[in-house]
């Protein structure tokens, strides 16, 4: 392993102060009913409470979300109020890159001395997608209404294509074999259920009980609802929607949140239940690939990241990604020469779904937790985002 200079030398992620909700598939849980900004604020307070972190420790809050919700205008201050603490903060939005980007923004706040402890809270509710009504002079009606989730999935204004079409286009470019894409998918489900069986998920996910307007329990979010075991045979039997893309080899929209803290080294030791564990953000890169080829962007981002850091794939103890299409993983494997069996050992967003902003934050949390359980090492986190963007970051756990 090569020794690396981190770009954020004064920044740490306190181990064991993080957590996420389970990610119920869209429309399957009471999360479909909530103001997700308020819910996330309250849930962060509870998760930190369970982690024995008094919220008074926080000095700043970076929130990340992509789907508009009521009072989103007020961003982090509103969400922090719901957590029970009046904090300054900002909002970060970069489609499915939001989770990782928010961590980097928080790291920048700490590194620059703005604060000693910044909270990162990412969340989205894709259920009952909010609908924006926009003035549009070029439309005959002069006004258009856009369903934030589905209408955006279906139309990239830069290319005119859909996300699903980008998966098909990239699969054709890399001449993917449908059979291998199905095998990756089946394997990812096996990995998820194995992690679940070992209790790994319970180390990072917190059950949350949702209240209705009368203050009565409306339901408990204690599972990634909507996730069902799939067999290779059933995957193979599915109708192809585009090249190598079926209902089974792509993720699904879901609702959820993920939160962690970013702090100075001293504060990390103070806040963590295991102060001897040191977690650093080493580096992060982003790239934008050719139009309509989003699934190859993560691999290109990782290439650039390794180039910048001098690290190699063999240096990575944990490799984990946001893979809305199974094709992403096969392309990554082809580009990087990396066995896809070695990735996503504790689950991934292909299986547990896709609440945009929270996705890469949960991926990161699970990756760091896995690295700790393995005795430390480098953790590679990456994924794609709307606009043919790839994002990748490497963390060092020691």
């Amino acid at each position, binding site marked *: 392993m090569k020794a690396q200079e981190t770009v954020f030398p004064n920044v740490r992620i306190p181990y064991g102060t993080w957590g996420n909700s389970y990610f119920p598939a869209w429309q399957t849980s009471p999360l479909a009913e909530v103001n997700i900004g308020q819910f996330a604020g309250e849930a962060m307070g*509870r998760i930190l409470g369970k982690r024995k972190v008094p919220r008074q420790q926080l000095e700043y809050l970076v929130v990340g979300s992509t789907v508009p919700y009521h009072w989103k205008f007020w961003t982090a201050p509103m969400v922090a109020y719901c957590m029970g603490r009046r904090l300054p903060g900002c909002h970060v939005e970069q489609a499915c890159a939001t989770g990782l980007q928010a961590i980097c923004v928080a790291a920048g706040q700490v590194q620059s001395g703005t604060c000693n402890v910044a909270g990162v809270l990412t969340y989205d509710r894709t259920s009952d997608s909010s609908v924006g009504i926009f003035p549009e002079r070029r439309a005959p009606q002069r006004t258009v209404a856009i369903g934030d989730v589905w209408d955006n999935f279906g139309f990239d204004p830069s290319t005119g294509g859909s996300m699903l079409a980008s998966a098909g286009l990239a699969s054709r470019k890399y001449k993917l074999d449908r059979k291998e894409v199905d095998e990756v998918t089946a394997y990812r489900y096996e990995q998820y259920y194995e992690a679940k069986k070992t209790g790994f998920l319970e180390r990072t996910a917190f059950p949350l009980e949702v*209240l209705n307007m009368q203050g009565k329990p409306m339901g408990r979010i204690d599972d990634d609802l909507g996730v069902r075991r799939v067999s290779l045979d059933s995957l193979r039997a599915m109708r192809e929607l585009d090249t190598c893309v079926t209902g089974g080899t792509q993720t699904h929209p879901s609702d959820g949140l993920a939160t962690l803290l970013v702090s100075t080294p001293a504060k990390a030791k103070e806040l963590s239940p295991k102060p001897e564990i040191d977690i650093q953000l080493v580096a992060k890169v982003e790239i934008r690939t050719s139009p309509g080829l989003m699934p190859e962007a993560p691999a290109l981002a990782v290439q650039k990241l390794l180039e910048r850091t001098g690290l190699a794939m063999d240096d990575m103890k944990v490799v984990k990604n946001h893979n809305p299409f199974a094709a992403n993983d096969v392309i990554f494997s082809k580009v990087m020469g990396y066995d896809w069996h070695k990735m996503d050992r504790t689950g991934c967003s292909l299986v547990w779904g896709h609440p945009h902003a929270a996705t890469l934050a949960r991926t990161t949390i699970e990756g760091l937790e896995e690295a700790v359980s393995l005795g430390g090492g480098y953790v590679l986190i990456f994924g794609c985002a709307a606009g043919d963007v790839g994002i990748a970051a490497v963390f060092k756990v020691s």
Partner: protein
Amino acid sequence: MTDSMRPSTIESLGLGTVLDIFKRGAMPASAAELVDRVFGPANKRGALVITGANGIVGAGKTMQLGRLLEPYGVPVVALDFPGVPAGLVKQYPGLVRGLGKDRAAAIMANVVQLSYDGAHLPRHLSPFNPRFVLEAIPEILEIKRAHYQVFRAEYPEVEIRSVTSGFPSRELGVGIAHPAFPHEINKVWEIVEPKPSPITALYWSLGMIPVMVSDHWSFVLDVLFTGVTLAALRYNAASNMPYWKVDKYVRRLVGPNPLRAHDAIGAKGANFLTWSCLEHLSKRYGPLFQPTASLVEKKDSGQDWYPPNHFRPMVNWPLEGQEVDEFNTWILGPLFQMTSLMLHEERAPLPQMNAIGELCAQFRDGIITVIRRHGSDAVIRTVEAYHRLYPAAAKSPWYPEAFAKMDAPEWQQLYVNAEHDGTVGVITISRESYSHDVDAELNRAIDWLKARKIDRVIVTGDFHLSSQLVGADITDFFPAIEDHAKGIELSRNWSKTARRLNDEFAVSVGFINGKRCLGGMLELMVHCHYVIAVESADLGMPEVTLPVVPGMEGCHWMFRKATPEYWPRILDLLLDGRPAKAKDAVGWIVDYAGPVADAVQACWGAATGNTRLPKRAVADKGLTGVPRDVPGLRPADGGVEAGRKAILDTIQKACEATLAEAITIQARHSGEFMATPHCRNGVVGSAFAKTMAV
């Protein structure tokens, strides 16, 4: 010579013992005489002046005292700055609701509103001849002192009392009469005076509850109330649990929901008062009382503690596993430590300190009762555990030795006292509702009298803390909702206690003095050989409205003591739930009813045997012919109807049985009904769900 388990609480007011009242055959003080002493004779009647009369306290007390003093022709001058929000105006609708338009108009016609600039008294005040100033201005020491100077310069003889919740009398230079919220109706006043004054006696004679407390920073109520608030806020800070949820758990644990109370009183004022008390206390007693940053923030902003309606909570915060124990430590630890401080400083006798929490701070059981229930060792362990959670509190005074004498009568007889003169004993109940604690204390009081060979006894309220007897404490029914065996046990035990009044004394007299005697308390009283009541008292069995089945033999005992012509009235009392006036209940509930003085004398006569009242014997054998229905009962909802059926069934079964068998039958019916959906969906079940099912 009188002997007693512990001093009567009214002795602390300089009003003698309860036994003295009966022996004298008269109350120790009369309102009319005391009004003359405080405000001058009718032809030269002076005024009560309330300053800061438009504030929450001032406006409430203007209404309360205005209502009580208007019949005596005492004018009330409401003094405040011009331009302050009109607090008195807000009180008027409540006055109309409570007393009717005519009475409200008469009371308001006796209130004169004047303005002043804070430095000079209005010249129009003089004709009213101020005799008593009740100061209710903001909690700023220098302003208060200057305020008194202004009055004394012009009216050197005027009596001044401050409603302050924090400053000692020695700092202010005037006596204290600190009232409890809600000010327009709460009768309790914490009094700081060198010795009880005529004003304090007047309060008592007007039906209020003055309680003497020591001259320390903040008084018992505020130490308890701000203390439990602070405990809740400390837990919030440590755990992140939101205020609303902490509040619910505090309510489940001890009774009050302090943060909701702040919002209900008015967060802006209440937050300031709480902060002010704690700030003063922390300066004297250290970090145990140090206000949290959240309290400082809310004090400055005046914001409510509960989230606004548009942010109704979405994430529940159930306590899990060991978290419950930790929560209990965070709340009880500081309360126990603060109480040790109050005990060390002897801030009030234990029964009074206990009652203040129950009557004014929503404590389900007073803090002394809670401590007694835990026991000395557990209390000390709790405080020590709290110090581990919050080490700063260990730097504040802590007196574990204050809990060393828990076996003494002062600790053991918080609600029930006994006195005797060698011949007649008086058992006084200082709690409005009957509970397992009252039951245990009552048994000890009976034992104490019997050990002293006293076989004549009067059972009554304490003429002080319990101004009425309202029945059983329904929180004692909560365990029975989930386990009917607990209900049966409770009913049987309480009934056994009640029977001791019938079985173990040569003469027992129940004396009903307050506004009302209902439910379990009435069941207790009717077990006495004689029941004597003030004629205006309401006597009732409202169990059916809850619905529950009376548990202390209410379904057969009164029938056994009454002749058959009264049975339909008893049945109506039980099945309708409406009370009867004592004067209309002679012969079937009570044996004598009359004006207070006559009733007191009749009671003493019956107890000593000097007055022969016809004794209504309790029938041992089963009764026949007890009616099975009451014509013309008011229509009722399903729960009440089910209650009526169950009560009727119990009446039939218990009355048909012998007296010896009836206790078991009554207990079984009462206990089993508490576990039915009718009870669970009624008042008891709703209270249980609201309080306990957090």
